[in-house]
């Protein structure tokens, strides 16, 4: 029997599957908070999570959190350090994978969260936070985005978080998880690895402002298992992060 699940629950599951066991993970905000916990609860029990506010955890928070600084994310942590400490580990090359999001993305995996004029008028966005650092220094990065034409640009207005560029020391964008599918960015062109159930290649092409390779045999994104859904609904009981109106499955 297939459980009903939301698009965002599917994205959390896809994010979790990007984490391998024993990896050191630079955990971002929002969906990756849940993705890290889910990976720990399933296939990656020995993953370690770093948070840019200085927290190091080897097990997920025991209660729901909105931000990495919420008290349940401190309780039971293995260490509470400073930002420069965890960023130093990142710079040193100790972090295998980091999660980032953005308002705009381009085919090289450049992310913009600083400013854009795509709508005609200047719009100021929140800025880098830790995203530019994770993009620069992690062993590989996983990008998480809303899949809309205005966000998928041939060239972003401003590169807050650098993607692939000549002379990069390490890392770079590996995977892009969107509301429509999972895309491989490691080859410096955008190739669909899977489309979410019910999503057509045409839908993806219309929502993407640059060429995207979708092969005939591109599979559907594996749907969440009952155990995965049980974890997500335990960690996000009110669906704050994962609720949406697009019930599928």
């Amino acid at each position, binding site marked *: 029997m297939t459980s009903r699940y939301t698009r965002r629950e599917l994205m959390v599951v896809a994010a979790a599957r990007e984490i391998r066991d024993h990896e050191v993970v630079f955990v971002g905000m929002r969906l990756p908070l849940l993705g890290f916990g889910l990976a720990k609860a399933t296939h990656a029990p020995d993953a370690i999570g770093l*948070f*840019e*506010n*200085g*927290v190091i955890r080897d097990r997920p928070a025991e209660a729901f959190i*909105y*931000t*990495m*600084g*919420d*008290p349940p*994310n*401190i*309780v039971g942590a293995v260490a*509470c*350090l*400073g*930002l*420069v400490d965890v*960023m130093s580990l*990142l*710079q040193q090359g100790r972090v295998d994978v980091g999660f980032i999001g953005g308002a705009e993305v381009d085919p090289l995996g*450049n992310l913009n969260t*600083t400013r854009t004029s795509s709508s005609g*008028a*200047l*719009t*100021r*966005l*929140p*800025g*880098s*936070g*830790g*995203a*530019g*650092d994770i*993009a*620069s*220094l992690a062993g590989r990065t996983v990008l998480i985005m809303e899949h809309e034409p205005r966000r998928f640009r041939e060239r972003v207005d*401003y*590169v*807050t*978080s*650098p993607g692939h*560029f000549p*002379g*990069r*020391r390490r890392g770079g964008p590996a995977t892009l998880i969107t509301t429509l599918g999972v895309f491989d960015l490691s080859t410096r062109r955008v190739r669909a690895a899977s489309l979410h159930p019910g999503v057509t290649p045409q839908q993806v092409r219309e929502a993407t402002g640059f060429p995207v390779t979708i092969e005939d045999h591109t599979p559907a994104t594996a749907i969440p298992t009952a155990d995965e859904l049980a974890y997500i609904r335990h960690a996000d009981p009110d669906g704050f992060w994962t609720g949406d109106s697009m019930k599928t499955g």
Partner: protein
Amino acid sequence: MPAPESPSVPVKLKRSLREAIAEQVHDGDAIALGLALESGIPFAAVHEIIRQQLIAAWVGNVAGGSGYGFRRAYEQGQPRRIVMEDHSNFSVGLALKAAAMGLPYLPTFTGIGGDIVRGHPRIRPIGDPFGGPDLLAVGALRPDVAIIHVQRADAQGNAHLWGNLGLTVEAAYAARRTIVICEEVVPEAVIRSDPNRTMIPGFLVSAVVEEPGGALPSSVQGYWRRDFEPFLAYHRTSRTLEGLQSWLREWVLDLPDRPAYLQHLGEAALARLRVSDRRPAAEANFAP
């Protein structure tokens, strides 16, 4: 923790929040705050700065949320034009760390290949004197004032802080003056019982303010949970300039001080937010 007795030690540095802001924060100052990221944001101090109508040249809020008020100021110059110096969290951390270390800059690899560092007033390309790959130099950033919210401090400003630290320590070391706002002023014996938890030594501190709940609606580990609703309400109401102004009147301008803010929040909200559970750390034996 139960309310402490008033300490009998001399209170050389102890001030009300109003006095501390009036004495330590001046027009044109560069102020560093919100340094632990999402927790311990000294909102009471920010409200007092607004009430005293001070104009900060540079407010280092590294969280940099895309607030509507901030966007109106940046995009339309309303109510006044602001200038941004964009950073990543690591680069602003290194700028503070360089100042804290007494260095003109620190080298880093972060930001290479991106637009933040392009033409940046404080970040320049630099070669490696040992023959390695090129780096970026992040120039020192010395705030005039750092405002820090901690759990407890003694009257000399020696401050115990636990939980995530963010850039709190770097900012306190880098700043010309540091205001420590605490949940409780405690006897110095409490601080000296656990010197590893002293994140800011008192000789760096210019003023100590006892202001319980001074970081609300942000959290303070062991004292206050995060109050989510005000963040959402502010986001909704600040969509328009009129909305922002009415929010400012209700929560800042028409209230004299933080105790009045807590009263306005109401006892039911305070009871929900106040931490009464106990999860104490294990004892560390410092016996010689």
